[in-house]
């Protein structure tokens, strides 16, 4: 085939087009976050005078962070978020794995019906039951407690966890379990044996359970809005409402709230994305 100069330019345009488009979109995705991060380390004058530059020795200032640590109970919010997320995560994985094991391992009457019942929650958001949940929490005296939040988040995360884990558990070779049964291992023991084998699936589900819990505004706002039980997301939301005009404080608190999730994301992003793509390909 003959290549004329014009077709060659066209070819190289076509070759670089994907990179160009992806680069432009990456800038769009990154730009707002970077603006907040770099400006949170500047003096008020520099935030408005030169928003697009990185902080220099003249414009560098930590005044915003000072206001935040003085005025807001961020330590408490972080601790609350960490407790709620961690406990809900462990319970979801353990309880979810147990149910998934029962559904995938045993052929008992009503198995399919039970699987269907447990998977309704994948599509119907738990928020629609808020009126009922709040009444239940009031009668159980769990309003303004972290326990209430944890129970809601576990219930919310279980359907998808069970659905995905039972698919993974079906892939564990049967011989392995049968050999253990012949050796006289109890069913509980066999469950304990399976868990390490599905570690990658547990890890992926763990990350996907954690992020919505950490980020949720709705239930902390409704079930536990007190300042003692506020999570980071709610705390930031309330703090920002009061300090709207203090730009240093606003930018710093946004940065503080973003940092933990961003660090986690950078650490686990490859694993996380790989687990979605692997799951979807199957």
């Amino acid at each position, binding site marked *: 085939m003959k290549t004329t100069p014009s077709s060659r330019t066209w070819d190289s345009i076509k070759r670089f087009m994907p990179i160009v488009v992806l680069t432009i979109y990456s800038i769009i995705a990154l730009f707002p976050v970077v603006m907040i991060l770099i400006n949170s380390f500047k003096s008020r004058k520099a935030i408005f005078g030169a928003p697009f530059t990185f902080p220099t020795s003249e414009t560098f200032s930590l005044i915003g962070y000072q206001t935040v640590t003085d005025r807001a109970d961020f330590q408490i919010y972080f601790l609350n978020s960490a407790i709620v997320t961690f406990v809900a995560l462990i319970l979801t994985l353990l309880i979810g794995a147990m149910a998934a094991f029962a559904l995938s391992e045993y052929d008992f009457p009503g198995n399919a019906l039970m699987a269907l019942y447990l998977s309704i929650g994948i599509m119907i958001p738990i928020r629609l039951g808020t009126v009922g949940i709040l009444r239940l929490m009031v009668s159980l005296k769990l309003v303004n407690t972290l326990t209430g939040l944890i129970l809601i988040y576990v219930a919310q995360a279980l359907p998808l966890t069970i659905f995905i884990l039972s698919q993974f558990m079906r892939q564990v070779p049967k011989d392995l379990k049968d050999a253990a049964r012949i050796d006289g291992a109890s069913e509980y023991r066999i469950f304990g044996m399976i868990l390490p084998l599905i570690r990658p699936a547990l890890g992926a589900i763990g990350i996907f359970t954690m992020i919505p819990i950490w980020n949720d505004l709705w239930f902390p706002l409704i079930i536990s809005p007190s300042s003692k039980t506020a999570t980071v997301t709610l705390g930031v939301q309330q703090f920002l409402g009061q300090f709207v005009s203090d730009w240093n404080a606003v930018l710093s608190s946004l940065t503080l709230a973003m940092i933990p999730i961003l660090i*986690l994301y950078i650490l686990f992003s490859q694993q996380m994305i790989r687990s979605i793509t692997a799951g979807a390909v199957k």
Partner: protein
Amino acid sequence: MQQPRRQFRFPVHIAVFLAPAVLLYTLFMVIPLINSLRLSFFEIQNQNQLSFTGLQNYIRLFTDANFAPFFWRALRNNFVFFAVHMLVQNPIGLLLAALLAEGGPLRNFFRTIIFMPTVLSVVIIGFIWQLILNPLWGVAEGMLEAIGLGAWFGPWLGKPETALITVSLISVWQFVGIPMILFYAALIGIPDELTEAARVDGATGWETFWRIKFPLILPTVGIVGILTFVGNFNAFDLIYTMKGANAGPDFSTDIMGTLFYRTFFGQQLQLGNPTMGATVAAMMFLIILTGVLLYMFLWARRVQTYEL
């Protein structure tokens, strides 16, 4: 997988494995959901007495001057919100996925960056964009000026005509990573032989994509569509963060989630009304259920899943 059981009794260990999940899920999700739906048929009389009123709450929601205008506006706004996601978010997600699936040395890097906003809290995203679009700070205006579009800038979040579209686009910006990653996963699952054959026959990349790859990923298109629908009709955080419970200016960004919150908890001059709140939630439930059923019976059944 088959495990014939000798005893007729329901085996204890199966019950032990299932009980915690079934109990928690039933107690904290299924029963409250049913109770909320049930409450929409009741009214709270004096001394917190519930009295059955049939469909009275629904009739009020659709026709009463205190509720109906808000309900219909929230419903319409929610469909606009959804339409923006379908017309902007999902096509951009598909484009980015197609470009990523082409390969290239930096694809992991791009994938990570573009997915990043998705993991941040909607509250943070809402505030970030409020600052970026704030005319006081002038960052958005400065950016537009840099590419020669300075005249386009306006107080988009503050004007009733543009606020809803602006908020929708911010949500698109945050969540475009989800359709992107799902489409990407589907696209890289297509075996090379299929596209290779087309290339040998002289098909262009564009033709190969629309004639071969796209029909193969139709199941994913449906999944992305229904996920968008459920997510959008359940949305609340972004509008509440950026515009408050009143979804201003002038209720122009009010969607079902904010209407539900306001009706349930009340606002400055109006007392909260649990039963009317439950009625709004029941309508959200019906809308989402209709969407899911339409997807299951009209789309998922007809679209063939090819064994790859």
